Each structure stands twice: as structure tokens, then as C-alpha cells.
């Protein structure tokens, strides 16, 4: 933990596009304040590069308050840096020491092709959601919000799962590149809620099928995802997803349900 300005050595992955080769490039940044966020430190470096007429480092970011899920990056080999319950944008430089060397790479997973430098394409997450990450309640259908009571513990557990920000750190940290934590969180949230019941079986079947076909790997219980998840989402939701999937695989028949 440093309280004075630091000089840091960065090794950053530079790659123009998916079709070209990439490599780690060394940079030095001086005058890094401990109060800076990690992304502000990269802003400072980028300003320096632009002034020299060089191409700044491309990276994804937006809200910078840990909720939009846009920022990514592997920092020293770990998604979002591996700090507990923290996205990259919320990593602050006081966690580092003067003279540290930090290796910064993009999320690496088969389902997330590289866009440029540290930015990757995570649209596969949306594609999984399109297969059933919703309750089909058209606008105008709704009954009174209190018509169906939901016990507080159930609502709370659904909220734990719903906190997923769709950043893909679970995928990037999994040795199999599995997306089962983000998908499991959605399936679990909707399976817990009474409103989600009518579509539960089909949801589990279709989302899992899509997940597998997009190049995400399977879950083999490494639990790296839970350790890395910036929202602390538990792998219990993967377990619930598996139960939902199995239940659906045994009992769901298109004819009997429609």
C-alpha cells in the first residue's frame, strides 16, 4: 500500500485486430497517485502516447463505478486483477507499490474474440440471454406488484443472482472458458421467482444449448469464477441451473406443455 506518488512499469498487450499478431509492450508511467483508479492510470499513459503521436491503448470502460460491466482486462493474470468484489475500474492504485511491474492483457476466452489491444467482443453473453434470459411479460400485461407475494429470503437470493453485471470475468477466469456462472445466475434468478416458473424448463434447455454452441466450455467445479466475480456471485447458482436443466431434460416435452 503506497501513500506517495509512484513510478510503475507496465507490460501491456498490443494487438491491432483479431487477424494480426499481438505482443506485450513495455511502458513506464511516472507520478501515479495512490488515489487514482487503475483506468485513470491508463488514461495518463494514453495522454502521453497521444502527445507523442502514438496510437493509444484501446480498452473498454464506461460507467467507472463498477456496475456497467464494460471494463475487462486481465491484470497480472487475473480478471479485474483478482481483488475481492472489485471490477477493474474500481481497482485503485493504492493497492500497488512504487516500482511494481504490472502485466495487463485482454480477457482471454474462445467465446470472446479480440477487437483491439485490451478490448474483446463479448456479444456471446447477449446471445445466450436472447435464448431465454427473460420472462415473457409484454408491456401492459402486469397485475399489481403485490398480487404475488415473494418471501424476503427468496427475493434476496434472486437479487444476489441478479446482481451479475455481465462483464465476463467468470469466463475469462475459468480454465474451460465456461459461461456457466453468468448464465446460471440468470437461470437461477428467474427460477427462484414465481413469475419465472412458466418458462423455467424451456429457458434452461435453450440457454444451455446456446451457451455450448457459442464456444463456452463446461463447468468442472474449479470455482475460479466465484473467486473472481466482482459481484461475489456464488456457484450455488450453477448448481441450481444444473438442477433446472436436469429437471427440464427429464420432464419437458414440447407437446405436453404447449
Amino acid at each position, binding site marked *: 500500500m503506497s501513500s506517495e506518488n509512484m513510478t510503475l512499469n507496465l507490460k501491456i498487450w498490443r494487438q491491432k*485486430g483479431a487477424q494480426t499478431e499481438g505482443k506485450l509492450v513495455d511502458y513506464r508511467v511516472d507520478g501515479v*497517485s495512490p*488515489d*487514482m*483508479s487503475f483506468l*485513470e492510470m491508463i*488514461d*495518463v499513459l494514453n*495522454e502521453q502516447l*497521444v*502527445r507523442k*503521436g502514438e*496510437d*493509444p491503448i*484501446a480498452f473498454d*470502460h*464506461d460507467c*467507472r*463505478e463498477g*456496475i*456497467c*460491466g*464494460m471494463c475487462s482486462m486481465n491484470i497480472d493474470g487475473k480478471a479485474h486483477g483478482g481483488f475481492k*468484489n472489485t471490477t477493474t475500474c*474500481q481497482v*485503485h492504485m*493504492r493497492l500497488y507499490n512504487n516500482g511494481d511491474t504490472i502485466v495487463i492483457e485482454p480477457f482471454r476466452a474462445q467465446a470472446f474474440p479480440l*477487437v*483491439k489491444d485490451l*478490448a474483446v*467482443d*463479448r*456479444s456471446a*453473453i*447477449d446471445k445466450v*440471454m*436472447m435464448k431465454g*434470459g*427473460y*420472462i*415473457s*411479460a409484454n*408491456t*401492459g*400485461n*402486469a*397485475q*399489481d*406488484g*403485490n398480487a404475488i*407475494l415473494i418471501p*424476503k429470503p427468496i*427475493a434476496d437470493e*434472486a437479487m444476489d443472482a*441478479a*446482481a451479475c453485471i*455481465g462483464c465476463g470475468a467468470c469466463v475469462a477466469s475459468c480454465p474451460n472458458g465456461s459461461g456457466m456462472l453468468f448464465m446460471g445466475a440468470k437461470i437461477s*434468478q*428467474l427460477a427462484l421467482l414465481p*413469475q419465472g416458473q412458466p418458462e423455467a424448463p424451456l429457458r434452461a434447455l435453450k440457454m444451455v444449448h446456446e451457451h455450448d454452441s457459442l464456444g463456452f466450455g463446461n463447468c468442472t467445479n474449479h470455482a475460479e469464477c466465484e473467486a473472481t466475480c466482482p459481484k461475489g456471485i456464488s456457484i450455488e447458482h450453477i448448481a441450481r441451473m444444473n438442477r433446472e436443466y436436469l429437471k427440464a431434460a427429464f420432464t419437458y416435452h414440447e407437446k405436453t406443455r404447449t
Partner: protein
Amino acid sequence: MTINLDAKAPSGELKDKWTKHKFESKLVNPANKRKFTVIVVGTGLAGGSAAASLAELGYNVLSFCIQDSPRRAHSIAAQGGINGTKNYTNDGDSVKRLFYDTIKGGDYRSREANIYRLAEVSNNIIDQMVSQGVPFAREYGGYLDNRSFGGSQVSRTFYARGQTGQQLLLGAYSGMMKMISKGKIKLFNRREMMDLVKINGKARGIIVRNLITGELERYAADAVLLCTGGYGNVYFLSTNAMTSNASAAWRCYKRGAAFANPCFTQIHPTCIPVHGDYQSKLTLMSESLRNDGRVWVPKKENDSRKPADIPDEERDYYLERVYPSFGNLAPRDVSSRQAKYRYDEGKGVGPTKQAVFLDFRDAISRDGIETIAGRYGNLFQMYERITGDNPYKTPMMIYPAVHYTMGGLWVDYNLQSTVPGLHVLGEANFSDHGANRLGASALMQGLADGYFVAPNTISNYLASNPLEKITTDDQAFKDAEAAVILQTSKLLAVKGKRTADDFHKALGQIMWNHVGMSRNEAGLKQAIDGIRKLRDEFWKDVNVPGDAGNFNLELHKATRVADFLELGELMALDALERRESCGGHFREEYQTPDGEAKRDDENFSHVAAWEYTGPNSSPVRHKEELKFEFVQLATRSYK
């Protein structure tokens, strides 16, 4: 004068207006809806809910978002909650009371009919979101829980921990995902709108930049919905996301959409203070914290003791002192101004002195640490991560920061701008919050516009207007695209020495100092002058490396800054012309003896709508007079 500011608010009793208007609106036959295409730009609460609802009705929707996924729009960052007038708490709430609180909160600078409609549909929003699986906070009996927010004396705010915006946005997003899978929405991600295309006077399409490839693309439609949020980032530092920008709205302004009340910006009282010049953005701490946190400063100037060492009698709980009936839950504009007064008096705290305390000591000893953690745990965690301080042990330090813009493109009751076919929803329009927005009502407005208002009014527009067949080969598309190419090559050709961020920060300084929490004539004139000079320098000295043919983040930034440099001037001009104080617009020349805003209803009870008249001529200020038939104008008091 080419601008028509007919609000088209229906006649009759307040409570009947919306019902009557819906009945009188024309409908599109279910089988004909598939013949229409609607463009929706932006996928926040307004854009996401509108895209999903229009697609459910049967229209073909083309949806555009600037991020890699629609789920990332900045609505996601709203923390505290969403208002609804369910009166589940039995504390005397009603549609009329929410209507009244909102119009008073906005300091009587908004349209009665619009606000009443907003309050009316607020309950439908809660129901809709529950049915989509939004896990709102619940009581042990399974019923929905409520809490209170600034500017109201009832508990009507529904919430999902400190992540209400996220949960609501994911609800709207899930509706979009459903309609994408059904083929009714076509999603275009990583696209930024560069221009509006008008054919025969009507909005018929857009030009967008594919941010990855750099290519410009043309899209045609029968109507365009602009749901691109506010322009708070004109100040550089704000609570907005990094890509939140004004360009889409600004380009519509240049195509003939009037810009209303640009000087009405909201400075939110509870943000984490600025700590360095490298800072890229500010972080909000939800207003809900003021339910339990007490705001104070030391009574002594330049008191550098630790907060715990300052005894109660030497603390000034100034909101409780000045506003005994609302206390710490005084509205945002009022609370921000009071924080500024304390700073001006030399009573600010922390290393920069630009901060006040928000203290949970009493709440923790009253309710216990677990209860407080249950209510605000994630906010406390976020605060500690950013500042390194633990708010369970020492008070938070907070200071006002730019958060929301009440101004925006002018719209009528149908949410249509002065360009036929261009509808503007959510924060991008000016419609509902007057000169100050109350907490937990931005989410409400975005969803009201998208779920319940636009689907009705768009159908009416499509059914009542003859829309000839067009293609993207039309000359208007070619011209608009050529203009974008020209501007891009100009930016790339400057090859100066300063970065886009450099200019943006300089603009932000001018705006914060002169068009911020308090404004005066000399300062505003100085701001206008300063912005013009800065804009000239920008076009002579900005450095945009690379070219337009790829993922060029500096080009994207510079394009937005170029527009901010024009919008900033209009904001200052609007602030200069509005010779009164109201809500967030505080002109030092117009204040009561105790430092409260002094409105001038005789001369300024109107919406100022600015018309663009070309690059080298001054914009023209038009007025939409506000008529108050149901509310008595009063001096806003929270004492």
C-alpha cells in the same frame, strides 16, 4: 419563425387528459404494424423499454447502442430507487401528490399535463417491472418495501438494494432480448449516431459510425426515437459514464429540433469529492443515504480535528437547522447550494475543503450496524474502495457534482420534437422535471416514456402522417453522410498539440466555475467568451492520431468534445437570458434575503426553446408559456 411550440396538451380535467388523448389517438391496424420501421437510438431505460414495447406491438425496430451491449447504458448506474404512487405504506400518497411534489420540486417550470401523466403511469411501471422478474426489496411478509427520498414526505420509492437502475435496466434489456430472438428488434451495438436524416421535413433516418470499423452506415425508417440521455459530461467531471455525450441530440438540434432550457442542470449533493486533476469522473453516493445519514460541518472555520473529536455542540447539522421539516431530505438543488455556502464560509472539510460530512454514527447506534449494512452495504463498500475510508467508522465526505440535465430537446405532449417524426424520450428530452428533478424520478420518467407514452403516440404519428417510400440512396442520406465525412477529415487534419481531453477539461472548468451551482451575469458573459476562444483553439490545435478507418477512441472523443464546445455556449447563453433563479438555476442577482432561489413568474414562467440558425449566426430564443390551471404557484419552501 419556423419553430412551432404547440404543446398539444389535451384539454379537460387533469386526470382525464391522458385517457382522453389515448382514445383520440389514431391506431395502426395490427396487420399493418409490420409495414413500419422505427429507429430507437440508445438502450437505457427509455430506449430499451421503447424498443421492446414497440416490437411487441409489431413494429420493426432498429436499435442502436454505443456500448458493446444494450445492458451497459448508464441508466444501470442509478442506485436509489424509482417512485410509484401505490400508497402501500398508507402514508397519504396519491397520483395527485406525486404530481404536486414533482411540479413543486421542479420549481414550477414544467408542464402540468406531462407530469400528471407521469404520476399516473408510475404504478404501471412498478407492476410491469415486478412481472418481468425485477427482484425489488421486500418485507418479511413478501410485500414490496418502500423508502423515502428527497423532496417528498411520503415513502414511495421502490428499490432493489443500491442497484435499482441496474435491475430496472436489466428488466428492459430482457424485454429487448426476447424481441430480438423473435426477430422484431435488430440490434446494432458499438454504433454512435452522427446525424439525423430528414426527408420532406420529416425525420426518416440516421447516419451512424460503426465504432469498431470506423465505417459510416445509413439506416432509414418511418420514425426516429432519440433516447440518448443527458449532456452532463459537458462539465467533463460528472457522474455520467465516460461515453455519455450530447452529440446525437446536438446534431438533431442542428437539423431543426429546438433545444429547451439547456441551463437547467442538476448538481447532486452527495458525490465523492474531487481528489486530483487526473480524475476522469465522479461517483455518486445515493441520495437514499440521507434517510439515515446526517449532513454536517464543524461550526468553526478551518477546523482540522478528526470528525470523531468534534463534539456535537460544535457541529452544524445545517440541513436540519435550515430546513427543520425536510431536514437531511431537502431536495437536491437546495442541499447542494447549502453545501456550497458552507464551503464559501470556510467550513468545508477534508484535504481540499470542498467537502461536507455525511455521518451514520447516530443511525448505527440507533438501528445497529447490521441494519445499516443491509440498507447501504454495497454503497459503503464502494465508498471505501474509492476513498480508502470506512464509513462505518468515520463519516463519509461528500460534495455536489453534476449529475443530471433537466434541459434537453423540446418535445410536445406526444414526446415529438419540433422535427416531425423525431421523438425524444428520457433524459434527452426536457419534459418533466422543470428546473430541478426529484430523486427516484429519472428512472420513472425513462420507463414511463418508453413503456407507456411512446407506444401510444408513435402509433398516432404513423397512422396520421403520409410517409412516402424512401431508401438510404436518397440524396438526403448522401448529403448527411458527406457532412460527417467532412467534419471527420477536418478533425484528423488539425494535427495540433493538445489532446481532446485537454480541451474537454478546460471547457469543464469554465462550465463548473460560471455555469455551475451559482451563476451571475458577468461570469456567464466571461464563460461565453472563454468557450468561443477555446473552440477556436480546438480547431487549430487538437491532436487526433490515426485515421477514421478503425477503432479510433481519440477520434470518437474529439468528435464529442467538438459538440460539447458548442453546447456549452448555448447553456451559458440560456443561463444569461433567464433572469431569475429557479431550481438548479441559481442566479446570484435573484435571491431572497436568506439565500433561496427567487423566481420571476411574471416574466419567466416559460420554457426557453432555442432554434439553431446556422454556424455563424446566433440561435433564436422562443418561448412556450407555461399555463398552470390546477396548481397554485407558490414560493417553494422546505422549511
